[in-house]
C-alpha cells in the first residue's frame, strides 16, 4: 500500500533527478569533443580547470546568502503585518497582491525592471528633480533589487504561515508577565516563527544558487554567476564536460554549506527549538 503511494514520487525523482545527476557525473569526468559535446574518458582535467570560474563561484556563494538575508529582512515585517496586524477581512486581498504578479512570467517582470532602472527610467526622473545622474542598470545593486523583487514572495509565504499559526494567547501571556512589545517579539514571536524563517531562507538560498536570468538582464553580464557560466558553457561554447564539472561541484558545495548552516542554526536555536511541522 505504502509502496503504491511512494512509487510515483520515487519514479519522478529517479528519472528527473538521480539519472540526470549520474549523467552529469559521467560527463564531468569526460572530455570535450572537438566539435563540442562529450567524449568518453576518465580524467580530472575538468575539475582542475575550475579555478577559471572562481569569480563566478565567489559571486554565487556571496549572492545567495546576501540575497536571502535581504529578502528575509524585507519579508519578515510584511509577513508580520499580514499575519498579526492586518484586518482579517483584507488579508486575502493583500496576499493576492503579493501572489498575483507571479502569474506573469519572471522574464517579463525582469524586463520591466530593466526599463525602470535603465537610463530613461528612474535615473532620468531623479535628474529631472535636480539630483545627479546615477547609473542603476548593470550594477550589482540592480541585481539585488531584481532578486529581492523576484524572490520576496517565496520568503513571505512560509514566514506568514508560521506567524499565522502562532497562538495569540502566547503574546497576551508574554505581555501579562511584564514583557514590553519588543521583548515579546524576541522572546516569543521570533523563536516561534523560526520554522518559517528557516524554510524561507533555505528555499530562497537554494534557488538563488542557480539563478542566471536576473544577473543576465539587470547585471548586464558584468556580475557573473554560476548560472550564467552554465548557460554559456552548455548553450554557447558547448563544453558539456566542463559545465558538468561546475554543476557537480556546485551541488557538493551546496550540500556541505547547507548542512553546516542548519547545524549552526539549530544549535543557535538550542533549547528554544521548536519541532518543525
Amino acid at each position, binding site marked *: 500500500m505504502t509502496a503504491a503511494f511512494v512509487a510515483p514520487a520515487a519514479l519522478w525523482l529517479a528519472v528527473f533527478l538521480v539519472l540526470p545527476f549520474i549523467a552529469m557525473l559521467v560527463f564531468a569526468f569526460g572530455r570535450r569533443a572537438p566539435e563540442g559535446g562529450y567524449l568518453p574518458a576518465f580524467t580530472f582535467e575538468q575539475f582542475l580547470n575550475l579555478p577559471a570560474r572562481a569569480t563566478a563561484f565567489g559571486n554565487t556563494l556571496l549572492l545567495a546568502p546576501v540575497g536571502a538575508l535581504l529578502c528575509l529582512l524585507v519579508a519578515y515585517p510584511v509577513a508580520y503585518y499580514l499575519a498579526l496586524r492586518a484586518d482579517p477581512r483584507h488579508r486575502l486581498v493583500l496576499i493576492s497582491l503579493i501572489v498575483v504578479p507571479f502569474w506573469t512570467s519572471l522574464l517579463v517582470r525582469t524586463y520591466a525592471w530593466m526599463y525602470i532602472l535603465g537610463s530613461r527610467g528612474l535615473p532620468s526622473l531623479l535628474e529631472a528633480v535636480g539630483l545627479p545622474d546615477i547609473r542603476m542598470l548593470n550594477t550589482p545593486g540592480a541585481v539585488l533589487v531584481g532578486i529581492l523583487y523576484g524572490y520576496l514572495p517565496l520568503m513571505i509565504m512560509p514566514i506568514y504561515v508560521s506567524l499565522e499559526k502562532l497562538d495569540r494567547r*502566547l503574546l497576551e501571556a508574554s505581555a*501579562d508577565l511584564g514583557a514590553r512589545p519588543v521583548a515579546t517579539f524576541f522572546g516569543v514571536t521570533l523563536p516561534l516563527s523560526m520554522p518559517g524563517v528557516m524554510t524561507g531562507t533555505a528555499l530562497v538560498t537554494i534557488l538563488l544558487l542557480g539563478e542566471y536570468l536576473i544577473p543576465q538582464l539587470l547585471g548586464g553580464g558584468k556580475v557573473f554567476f554560476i548560472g550564467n557560466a552554465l548557460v554559456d558553457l552548455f548553450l554557447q561554447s558547448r563544453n558539456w564536460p566542463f559545465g558538468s564539472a561546475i554543476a557537480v561541484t556546485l551541488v557538493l558545495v551546496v550540500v556541505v554549506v547547507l548542512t553546516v548552516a542548519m547545524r549552526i542554526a539549530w544549535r543557535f536555536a538550542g533549547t528554544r527549538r521548536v519541532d518543525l511541522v
Partner: protein
Amino acid sequence: MTSAANDVEFRSVSKRYGEVRAVSDVDLAVPKGAFVALLGPSGCGKTTCLRMIGGFEQPSEGTVLVDDRPMNGVPPYRRPVNMVFQHYALFPHLDVEANVSYGLRQMRPRIDRREVARRTGEALELVRLGGYSARKIHELSGGQQQRVALARAIINRPSVLLLDEPLAALDRKLRTAMQIELQSLQRELGITFVLVTHDQEEALSMSDFVCVMNAGRVVQMAPPQEVYDRPGTLFVADFVGKTNRLSGVVEAGGRTLRLADGRALPVSSQAPGAVTAVLRPEAIAIAHGEGDGLAGTVTHRIFLGNAVEYAVAADGIGEMLVTADRSAAQTLADPGDRVTLRFAPESLLVFPT
C-alpha cells in the same frame, strides 16, 4: 465598603463590540485578599470583565481600578496583575523553568541570575513541581501544565491573580484536588484571586464571594452560601443549583400560594401577586405511601452513592426533582411507587413574575 479596601473595582464599566454590548454598566468591588468567582453562562461577559482587569480589553465606558489606581489605557505589561490563561498558554519553545521565570526575566532593572533561579525554584516547589524544571511543556500532563501556569503567574507577586476557567480542561478527580490546592495557595499567598467559571460547583466550592453575571450585568454578588440559599433572582436560583419551579399566585395576606390547579401551599410571608416559586430538590422530604403533603408517583430513580435522586410526577403539578440522603431513605422507592413530598414553607423561594 471604602475603595481603599478593594484590590479591583469596576465603576459603571461597559464594553461594546460594535453593536453588541458584552458588559453593561457593571459596578463591582473585589475586597483585598478575597477569592472572587465570576460565574455565569457563556457569553454573559465574565471573561470580558477578566480581560479588562488584565488589560487585554479596554472598557468602552467607565473605569477599572486595580490597587485603587485607574487602569484606563494602561497596557498589560504595566499592570500589577497576572493571569492563568484558559488552556494555560504556556510557551511551547521554553522548558518549565524558562516558562516560570519568564516574568522575573522581564523585570527592569534586571534581577540577578541566581536570584531568578532561586525564586523560580521556590515557585516550582510551591506548586509541587520541584525537579521538573528541565522538562518540555509537551512532556507534561494537563494537571502539571496547570501547575506551571500557576507558578508562572504568581512569580511576580501580583496584587491580583486572574484565572480564566483554569480547571475546565482537567478531569473530574484532578479538578477537585486542584480546587483544594487553589484555595490553600490563595490563603498562603494572600493574593486576591479573581476566577472566571461557568461551573457553579467550582464557584461555590472555592470562593469567598460569588459574582453571578447574566447578559453583561452583575445579577448578585454574595458569599456562596447566600447565593445558594437566598438567590437574588430567579436566574440566580436556576443557574446556581437545581430547582423545581411552581407557578401560582400569592393571596392577600401573603401566607398562601395558590397553584394553577387550585391547590394551596403555605409560604412564609410574601407580597401578594403572581409569582414563580422555586424549591431545591434537597429541601423536599420523600415518604412512602400517601399522606399529608403533595402526592405523586416515582418515575425515575438515580442512585448517586451518597444520595438518591428521584423524578416524581406530582399530581396536578408535574415532574419534580427530589434529592434524598441515603441515611434518610432506608428503603429506596421504586419507579411506580406512590409517594408523598413534604417541605418547609421557608424553603420555597418566591420570585414575583
